[in-house]
């Protein structure tokens, strides 16, 4: 890849993200900022962890809520039950993400495909029941309420704007981190796992280890998503990691399109918009979300992002170069361009 191409690929999205971070709080109303932008950002971060697993390593995990929940619960338990300094708690929770990710990976490392999907679903639902049952630590059904985000130098992170900046900057950092991993030799091993497990093994890699590593990497994003969700909601309970949330993450990634991790943010935005505005005219929002999910899965392989890329690849001349590039790549692998 030429240096200018690389610069365009890296710099353009970064500049766009920075402009977004500056412009959005000015343009958006308080409602939109809190209910839609921030929510879809932390949901997108959690979704990005799954998009990474699905799109890069070909592992459809339904256990991301277990990671998400571990980080969230660590955060809540350390601050609310033990009164530990909030930044220490944040550090522990963020570190808890990859650790939980490695554990989920360990449980499912010997399986793949559908088996892995079911096994991780069992892990995710297990985390929910553990939260609900193990009262001495998790406080059972009610969970933790009344979490207060920190106030630093007069900036109150319970306020919309500071919360937005924290969430948005984390989102950018997560994307940068995941893309860095994708570009590294480890990223190549993950794609090897996705495309041909046997050949990966023949090359001397252990598919089990690569699976565990992929879960570990995704745990970083899922953990940060969990921490931010606690900051946003001020609470965490088994309800935040129940099967609805498991499905929600998959919906977010599928609707957005797992071919790029950014798709998760697109999907999170779509789902959040649907949830907010559909509730104005119907009580059956979940039916609508479920139906939208089914339709997207039935008719599109890569979600909204896939539709867009497909449309772009059909546009003549203007994107001619891009088109040929895209075609080549989409022929090369069942999945999509890697970076």
């Amino acid at each position, binding site marked *: 890849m030429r240096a200018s191409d690389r610069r365009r690929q890296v710099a353009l999205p970064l500049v766009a993200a920075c402009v977004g971070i500056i412009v959005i709080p000015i343009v958006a109303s308080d409602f939109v900022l809190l209910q839609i932008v921030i929510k879809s950002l932390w949901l997108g971060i959690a979704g990005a962890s799954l998009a990474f697993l699905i799109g890069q390593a070909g592992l*459809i995990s339904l256990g991301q809520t277990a990671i998400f929940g571990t980080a969230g619960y660590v955060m809540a338990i350390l601050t609310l039950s033990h009164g530990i300094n909030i930044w220490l708690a944040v550090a522990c929770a963020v570190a808890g993400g990859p650790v939980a990710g490695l554990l989920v990976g360990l*449980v499912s490392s*010997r*399986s*793949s*495909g*559908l*088996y892995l*999907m*079911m*096994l991780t*679903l*069992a892990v995710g*639902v*297990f985390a929910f*029941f*553990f939260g609900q*049952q*193990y*009262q*001495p630590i998790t406080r059972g059904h009610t969970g933790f309420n009344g979490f207060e985000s920190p106030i630093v130098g007069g900036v109150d992170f319970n306020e919309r704007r500071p919360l937005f900046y924290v969430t948005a900057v984390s989102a950018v950092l997560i994307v940068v981190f995941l893309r860095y991993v994708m570009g590294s030799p480890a990223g190549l091993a993950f794609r090897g796992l996705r495309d041909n*497990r046997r050949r990966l093994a023949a090359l001397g890699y252990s598919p089990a280890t690569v699976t565990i590593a992929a879960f570990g990497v995704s745990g970083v994003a899922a953990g940060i998503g969990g921490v931010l969700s606690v900051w946003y909601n001020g609470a965490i309970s088994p309800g935040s990691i*129940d*099967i*609805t949330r498991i*499905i929600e993450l*998959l*919906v977010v990634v*599928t609707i957005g399109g797992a071919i790029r991790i950014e798709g998760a943010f697109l999907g999170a935005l779509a789902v959040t918009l649907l949830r907010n505005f559909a509730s104005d005219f119907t*009580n*059956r*929002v*979940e*039916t609508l*979300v*479920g*139906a939208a*999910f*089914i339709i997207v*899965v*039935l008719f599109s*392989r890569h979600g909204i992002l896939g539709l867009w890329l497909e449309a772009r690849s059909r546009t003549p001349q203007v994107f001619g170069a891009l088109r040929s590039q895209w075609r080549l790549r989409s022929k090369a692998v069942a999945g999509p361009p890697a970076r």
Partner: protein
Amino acid sequence: MAPDRRNAAVATRVGVLLAHLPGRTGTPRPRLAAQVALGGLLVYYVTAKSIEIGDRSLLVLLNGLTAAALYFLMASGFTLLFGLVRVTNLAHGGVYLLGGYAALSVQQATGNWLVAIGLGFLFSGGIGIALYLLLRRLRGEGLRETMVTLGAAIVMADQALARWGGVPSDLDPPALLQGSLPLPASPLLYPKFRIAVIGLAVLAGLVLWLLLYRTRLGMIIRAGVDDQDMVSMAGIRVELVFCAVFVLAGGLAGTAGVAGGTYLSLAQGEDNRILLASLIVVIAGGLGSLRGAGAAAILVGLVEAFAQTHHAILSVLITFGTLIAVLALRPHGLFGQPVDARL
């Protein structure tokens, strides 16, 4: 505690000794030794705990078997569907709930439990057909099919909430099965209906076995599990058979819903609880294996009942630990065959 610990130590030592008996090659086998030792410890622990609560361990056993019966009804349909059509139906819990609720409405209208369970079976069989039609476009793409069933699960749960509300409700058992039976050799009573559920599962297992191994349809289904293309080459309309399996699986889940709705209750979230249990059963038993579903249902049911009695707070952890232990020993489940990883 001291004698307890000494007994445990003895059990371990016996296990180690047993495992060191020469195998065919005459070499000691440390892995087997560890397994036998652990197994011995486990048996010792369970026996000790059961003796501790005396008579009531009979109740634990029966509760375990009742739960196993319900899990088997669920898991057998799930595993059949997977075995033949290669569909992982994550809406199975939703079918359970809707089948139970439909029967509830029928019972409220007619007052007859038998009519209710019959119509519950038909209704959930109908849902099976709907799922079949929905999934037909995606045949062969296991992961996308699974995602569609997940979407269907959301829709079903929400529709059940819309139609029947969030308050837990249950069906009345038929007059014949109301009340309790005295248990032999103890002053304890056990509800008749729960025993009937065990009978129902045994019956369902028998019928399924006869259907699969003694009829032409069963022959086709089993052949379809092995090689779909050859079956359709033989001039059999595989699509019809697929549809029949969807109906059967849906009907079994609906029947489980009626049984569960009678002795437990129907509520929001029940669909997920039962789905998790049957997932654990199916994975532990080996995907696609009916025998595995039966064996694992009993295992999971008993472990769960035991854990709920003796370690209420850790029961989910223990049930889940069982799954992990089974998978550690047999990665494809108790009776499972390796499944093509690229599904």
